[in-house]
């Protein structure tokens, strides 16, 4: 076999590729359609960019369709997105009407492909209402929720729930993020792509050049947190931990790398607070990077001695797996999906305060051998559990289970 799938073999092992090939056999020739609301940008598009060609290569007739809408539709779905994550977002009747109408128009346009598809994945709330226009659909429809829907703003969930409930199954990232629904609720954690620009191996000179560009001294220890300037990511707590640790390790440098905050008033306020807390310390590097600075982030993660993700509240927090994949232990906040990735004392440390983080920073820098061992364990743990080949395997499992009966046991005979 040559092609995309085979490029993963050196990373994940031939046995993983062989297992995907065998598991996908009963699905070969099936028509699978993914529907979301954007072709570029955002986590869902990033997943589908690889998932769709990989499924095709496994013999599934896979398509990716994007619904189209006007400004008011996106205004509405942005409110949905916030409301699903617990924000009190008021959605007017006019916006709800726009949502329904946009879904109706897209249902008409996509009818030829969706009507006779064997499996349809509807990603997130944007296209969730398509299903009401396919009462005689042939295949299994699965609603894939990529966000933390554990405590949605109730009026919005009340509106969306009847659409979601019509699907044959849904998929959430964690049990914690899920809702009770009248169909099987599958759990599939997200994953990282080891071959993407964010995670691929980089030449040492490129890493050195990027450090030089930002004034980072590669001869001294450096720790990094990659995150938006958001209170839940606790950048001020990270600076506090840095200050406590530098009392004992004065050569330590801190890099806080995040996106620009021009369209986010709260982000701007947090950034101003972070700059004030840094007090122009030359060893605190606050980097505002563009959204596509994947290689730069990759290089910074590789240059770091270890990585922090000291969130107070977190969804899944895939930046943790990204760092661990580069062999870095992570000091992470004891919250959300970070707990699934940071195995305390093995792949990093879970902390609940700046003091806890400072203690672990000092520990790691004084126990270099242990730091290296933890980094090795972290990489292995990600290889086993958080690469996109694992996610693909779980999607295939769900597809086989749904198309071959919903019993506890599905035995394929060929």
């Amino acid at each position, binding site marked *: 076999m040559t092609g995309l799938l085979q490029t993963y073999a050196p990373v994940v092992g031939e*046995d993983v590729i062989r*297992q995907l090939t*065998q598991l996908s056999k009963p699905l070969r020739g099936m028509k699978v359609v993914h529907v979301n609301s954007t072709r570029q940008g955002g986590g869902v598009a990033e997943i589908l960019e690889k998932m769709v060609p990989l499924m095709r290569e496994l013999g599934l007739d896979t398509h990716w369709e994007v619904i189209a809408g006007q400004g008011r539709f996106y205004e509405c779905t942005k409110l949905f997105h916030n409301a699903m994550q617990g924000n009190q977002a008021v959605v007017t009747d006019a916006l709800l009407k726009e949502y329904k109408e946009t879904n109706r128009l897209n249902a008409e346009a996509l009818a030829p492909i969706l009507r006779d598809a064997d499996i349809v994945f509807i990603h997130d709330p944007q296209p969730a209402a398509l299903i009401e226009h396919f009462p005689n659909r042939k295949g299994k429809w699965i609603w894939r929720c990529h966000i933390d829907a554990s405590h949605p703003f109730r009026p919005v969930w009340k509106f969306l729930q009847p659409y979601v409930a019509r699907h044959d199954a849904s998929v959430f990232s964690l049990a914690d993020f899920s809702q009770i629904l009248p169909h099987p609720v*599958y759990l599939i954690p997200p994953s990282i792509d080891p071959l993407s620009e964010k995670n691929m191996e980089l030449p040492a000179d490129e890493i050195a050049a990027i450090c030089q560009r930002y004034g980072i001294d590669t001869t001294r220890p450096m720790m990094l947190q990659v995150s938006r300037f958001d209170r839940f990511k606790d950048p001020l707590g990270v600076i506090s931990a840095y200050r406590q640790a530098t009392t004992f390790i004065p050569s330590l440098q801190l890099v806080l790398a995040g996106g620009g905050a021009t369209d986010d008033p709260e982000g701007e306020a947090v950034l101003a607070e972070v700059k004030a807390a840094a007090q122009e310390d030359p060893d605190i590097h606050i980097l505002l990077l563009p959204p596509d600075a994947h290689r730069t982030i990759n290089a910074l993660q590789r240059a770091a001695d270890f990585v922090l993700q000291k969130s107070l509240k977190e969804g899944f927090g895939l930046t943790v797996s990204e760092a661990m994949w580069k062999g870095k232990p992570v000091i992470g906040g004891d919250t959300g999906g970070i707990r699934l990735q940071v195995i305390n004392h093995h792949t990093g440390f879970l902390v609940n305060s700046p003091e806890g983080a400072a203690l672990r920073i000092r520990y790691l820098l004084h126990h270099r051998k242990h730091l290296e061992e933890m980094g090795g364990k972290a990489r292995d743990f990600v290889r086993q559990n958080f690469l996109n080949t694992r996610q693909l395997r779980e999607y295939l499992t769900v597809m086989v289970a749904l198309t071959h009966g919903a019993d*506890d*046991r*599905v035995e394929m005979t060929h």
Partner: protein
Amino acid sequence: MGKPSNIEPFVVKDCTLAAIATGRRAQNLRELRDHLQVVHPGSIYYHFWGTLLRPDFDDPEYNNDFASWSRHALHDTKLAEQLGVIDPADYPDIDGLRQELIEIIEQRLDETEFLAWARRDQQFHFVRSQIVVFDTGRRFSTPQELTAAIPSLSLGSIYYHVIDARRREPLWTDDFRAWLERFGDSYADVCKQLAELDPYFTTLAELRVELTHIMGAHQPTKVKV
């Protein structure tokens, strides 16, 4: 040693698990007990055995999710130890295991004056699983061929032929032993060692190594016909 003509080849299968949320959640010990009384048996099975095949660390502090939750969410170390020592292989069926869990929890509830609560984001979520079994296409006619191939079997195959096999009718035994027993007394020793294998307090990768070791070290006994 060759294969007697009437013995079917060993068929290597593989499996994957799909995790399904049951919607049942517990935030304290009393709620955990109440759900345990009625939850789908597949959920209890999953929280004991499913840990082997899902994102988890290969050196877990506790081998089942109930013990782990007691320690990390309720901070009840004593209960965690009592639950952690349970070996599900000691119980003939899930209901026996269910009763043991309830018994230990009831006793702990009697002992404690205050009910410990987990944080809202650390509730116990009852999950069950669907197992999807598929054929790898690999067939082995002799024990020697099978032994040579064991290191290359996927962890899913090890799970299916050792863990899952033990709850399959009518044999209730691992597939390797069931197949080797057809070769008569020649493999009596290896079958005995396989029977003593405890698949619970180990990982699938370690189990694969142990299987390789037991079967690889074996020389078939010459039996007079």
